[in-house]
């Protein structure tokens, strides 16, 4: 399947792009991250500290072991700092 992946804040800066379409068979968010890290160093570096990574699937916050079944949009970002 094809999912659109979005990156925000320093994840966006480290990876160097804000969005991309990725072809994947990943079953879970964690699987997708493993696939991305295997691609290139900049991905590997960006995802090196997973305690600092949050994820939303189709604009809903999820844990990293969440399923990607039916997912169209996956976003990665650091802990939020609104308010």
């Amino acid at each position, binding site marked *: 399947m094809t999912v659109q992946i979005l990156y*925000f804040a320093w994840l966006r800066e480290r990876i160097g792009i804000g969005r991309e379409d990725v072809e994947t068979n990943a079953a879970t968010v964690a699987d997708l991250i493993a696939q991305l890290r295997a691609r290139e160093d900049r991905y590997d570096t960006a995802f090196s500290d997973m305690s600092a990574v949050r994820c*939303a699937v189709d*604009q809903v916050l999820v844990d990293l072991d969440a399923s990607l079944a039916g997912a169209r949009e996956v976003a990665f*970002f*650091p802990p*939020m*700092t*609104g308010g």
Partner: protein
Amino acid sequence: MVDLRIIVSQDDFDLGVEAERLETGPDTGAVVTFTGRVRDVAGGLRHMEIEHYPGMTERALTDIAQDAADRWSLSAVTVIHRHGRLIPGARIMMVGTAARHRDAAFESASFLMDYLKSRAPFWKKEVREDGAEWVASKDSDEAALDRWV
């Protein structure tokens, strides 16, 4: 019916106008507003850059506001959050709640702030004279959510 007002914008807002909007209906006895501003804590802050996740932001804010409205039987809730470049002293955001009694208005506004701090998709970057840095999330902000579970 609760009156939800959710705004995500680069523009500033008028707190007087927003507060007046919250004073709706004969049964609203208490209105609380919270306004957050850019502080130049250490000196040398040029501006704050606020990034957000268009689409998800509005959705998250609406969910949080509706949740507060249900939990405290609010008559109106306003959540406004700015993004983009904000200079020291500029307003960043506000929440406003309207309820029958003071406790509901205070608690729900405090709840909204705690959720906004660590559950709404905003990220702050401080652009200083000597470089730029993403604001780190605080453990205390995450811990603040525990009291609402």
